């Protein structure tokens, strides 16, 4: 049938219109765009900016492929309407700006940035279907995407995962290099899908880790380099359930985790239509939203070019510094971290029992059992840039950070369920709702940041900015003056102030600056 399907209709209007630049241009080709979807003569999908194409893809999935989207990534450009419902004072917010469904947006951003996304949620909620859609967006035929998808199962071997040595070579080869390997096709795909990855045996998981983490597969001394790819994994249970425990390193390689939320039965009629008309969204993806390899490369470059303004960077720094510090974990200052305690294998409750002095309700660091890794930070920045890009912005905003951070840290920042925060009135739900908890954590961190007035009064930032200008040509007097300033600042902070995570990191930064200036001073003196 040559009929273009109405099911393939894309948004005709800009999906997230922004104020136009002052000198406006008109395109005479717009004459032929309008209420009737054009037949291809007048449109040039390739000429669409890639962020607009990405939004087109998002809106096509939300409006057509997904039956009941949940708008849980909320943006506001004014006060939102908010209602309190039920005995537990549940808050329903009606956002005042364009808001998004994490179940669609996060995979799409993963696709655009070629990172790794884990879908979690009960069976039959569309996890695999969404992953397949991402494969189709990369230009692979549906059948090929399905065939290249790995299905985790308890008997899965490394050969099932990576490929097999050719039997004839096994018999005839004189040395191992002569044995050719028939590598599995999925290794070369730019969208890799692993269904139920938590059913893969532990040993096979390790081989998978090499492919996921390092981008190559190894078998019998043969190496197969895999192209950069977006990864989509699914699991019915993220909490280590499934047939096998997922090895920690593999879990850590996953960049974002997105939960498939429940189906709203109010959309049942749409489901019936889909059954009656045999509509499979992955089979009717409009060609205008399919990305070529070059486009994804270009999109990655454009996303990387999105800037993180200093005021946003400082809030990320401040937030991150809340969690790693553990005053009782080490004697030497640098080792006062949760990681030191973890490596030592100390029981967590023994450690928290030693905590003294600090307000454990106020200290955000008390809510977690670990800190944020460099990989986690890099992922936050990648995805914050990606969501800003998706929204048509060229700089990350605080709201972008607020929306993306919980999905990145979902499995990376482990809550301490015994922390007083979770016992506080109204906080019980945060024990089960990690997204809500992480978002609240960032809100509290930002509130503390504002209370400390760090945007205006940040002596460490001032010293660091001075240092970034370079030490070349700085006089001995100036260096001494800076050293006095650093020492004065530390002495000032030492006067009876409690030690919190952000202070700890500031002190380490001051030590770093002190050391760099001391070395420079010594060099000046020996010249």
């Amino acid at each position: 049938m040559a009929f273009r399907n109405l099911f393939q209709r894309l948004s005709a209007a800009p999906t997230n219109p922004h104020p136009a630049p002052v000198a406006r241009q008109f395109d005479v080709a717009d004459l032929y765009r309008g209420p009737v979807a054009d037949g291809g003569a007048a449109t040039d999908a390739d000429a669409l900016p890639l962020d607009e194409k990405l939004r087109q893809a998002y809106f096509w999935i939300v409006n057509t492929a997904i039956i009941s989207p949940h708008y849980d990534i909320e943006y506001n450009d004014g006060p939102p309407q908010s209602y309190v419902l039920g005995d537990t004072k549940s808050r329903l917010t009606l956002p005042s700006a364009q808001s998004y469904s994490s179940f669609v947006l996060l995979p799409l951003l993963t696709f655009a940035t070629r990172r790794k996304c884990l879908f979690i949620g009960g069976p039959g909620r569309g996890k695999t279907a969404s992953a397949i859609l991402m494969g189709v967006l990369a230009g692979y035929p549906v059948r090929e995407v399905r065939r290249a998808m790995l299905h985790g199962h308890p008997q899965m071997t490394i050969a099932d995962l990576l490929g097999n040595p050719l039997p004839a070579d096994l018999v005839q080869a004189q040395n191992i290099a002569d044995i050719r390997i028939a590598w599995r096709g999925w290794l070369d795909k730019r969208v890799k899908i692993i269904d139920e990855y938590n059913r893969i045996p532990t040993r096979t998981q390790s081989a998978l880790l090499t492919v996921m983490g390092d981008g190559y597969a190894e078998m019998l001394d043969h190496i197969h380099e895999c192209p950069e790819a977006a990864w989509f994994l699914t699991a019915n249970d993220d909490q280590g359930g499934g047939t096998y425990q997922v090895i920690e390193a593999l879990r850590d390689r996953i960049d974002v985790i997105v939960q498939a939320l429940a189906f709203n039965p109010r959309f049942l009629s749409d489901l019936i239509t889909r059954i009656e008309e045999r509509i499979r969204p992955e089979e009717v993806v409009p060609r205008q939203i399919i990305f070529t390899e070059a486009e994804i490369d270009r999109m990655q470059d454009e996303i990387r070019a999105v800037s993180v303004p200093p005021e946003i960077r400082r809030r990320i720094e401040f937030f991150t510094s809340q969690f790693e510090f553990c005053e009782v974990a080490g004697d030497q200052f640098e080792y006062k971290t949760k990681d030191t305690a973890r490596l030592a294998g100390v029981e967590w409750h023994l450690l928290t029992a030693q905590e003294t002095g600090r307000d454990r309700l106020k200290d955000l660091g008390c809510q977690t059992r670990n800190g944020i890794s460099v990989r986690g930070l890099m992922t936050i920045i990648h995805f914050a840039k990606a969501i800003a890009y998706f929204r048509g912005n060229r700089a990350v905003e605080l709201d972008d950070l607020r929306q993306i951070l919980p999905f990145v840290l979902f499995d990376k920042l482990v809550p301490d369920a015994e922390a007083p925060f979770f016992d506080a009135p109204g906080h019980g739900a945060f024990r089960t709702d990690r997204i809500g908890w992480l978002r609240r954590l960032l809100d509290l961190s930002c509130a503390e940041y504002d209370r400390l007035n760090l945007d205006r009064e940040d002596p460490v930032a001032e010293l660091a900015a001075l240092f970034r200008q370079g030490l070349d040509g700085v006089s001995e007097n100036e260096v001494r003056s800076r050293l006095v300033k650093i020492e004065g600042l530390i002495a000032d902070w030492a006067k009876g102030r409690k030690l919190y995570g952000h202070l700890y990191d500031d002190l380490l930064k001051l030590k770093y600056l002190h050391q760099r200036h001391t070395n420079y001073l010594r060099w000046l003196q020996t010249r």
Partner: protein
Amino acid sequence: MLCDVLISVLRSARADLNAQFAQAKRERPALDDAAFTGFIEQQIDPLARLAPGDQAYDVISTAWECGLELVAQRLAGPQARHPWINETWKLLAAQLAHAPRQLIPAFSNAAYHLATTPGARPRQWLDLMQNIAQVVTDAPALLHAGQIAAWRAGLAHYREGALKLIAALEPKIAQIALGADSSAFLEKVIASPWIEKPAGNRESLRAGSFRGFGGLFIVPPLVTAVNDQLFVRSGDDVWLLTADSFGATFHRGTLAEFQAGSGSRFDDAPADIGVVTSVARTRHTVAVTGSLTHAVLLFAA
């Protein structure tokens, strides 16, 4: 009575056509069965009759698909809010039947823009298109000529794009698309947005009117110029104004754009506009507003 070709295609593709109708109806519940039946008889049937034998299916399927969208929005068919898309299908039927995928959506959308842009002249566009169709048969050239004709019919904002198309088209075709009777006219059109400068202190064009009379402005407007473009403000609303000898069009702007602009002086305004309230000047145009008019007066600079 429907033609045999149409009956045959409707019969053979019945299931798919019905599914499309059902889906369109779900998406746009306003899609009226009777109106679409009327559309089939009045719009699709004439196209089917003119369709070359090997293209009948393509013509009918495209017309069906576009028709669903147009009828559902009451843009075509017996209940259409304006006649121009129906007219386009009727008067350019031979061309649409010749290249349905390229021309049916494009010309329907063009007719829509001309019909819904205040001051544009869809009748003139259709006349020009009929003239063009007598000498141009291939779809890409028809599409280009259609864009030039749309500019000629009042869509002033397409001037730049249309001038580029003129440069790429055969001069004869461009001349027909512009309704020009000589190559001298073509040269004048290319040289300046204002072909003739009226004698005395008469303006070249008055653009816009009071909202109560179907215009845009709720109070007498003000003008500024930013980056060689004119911005008009009336109350809290702002528009970008594009204008030339063929017409004037307004496009939504922002207060920031208006406020970024600068004013000018003009000492030759006609008396009937009252006190001059604002003047803005671009390379080719001087825009003047007055206390007694809801229009913007445009003078060739």
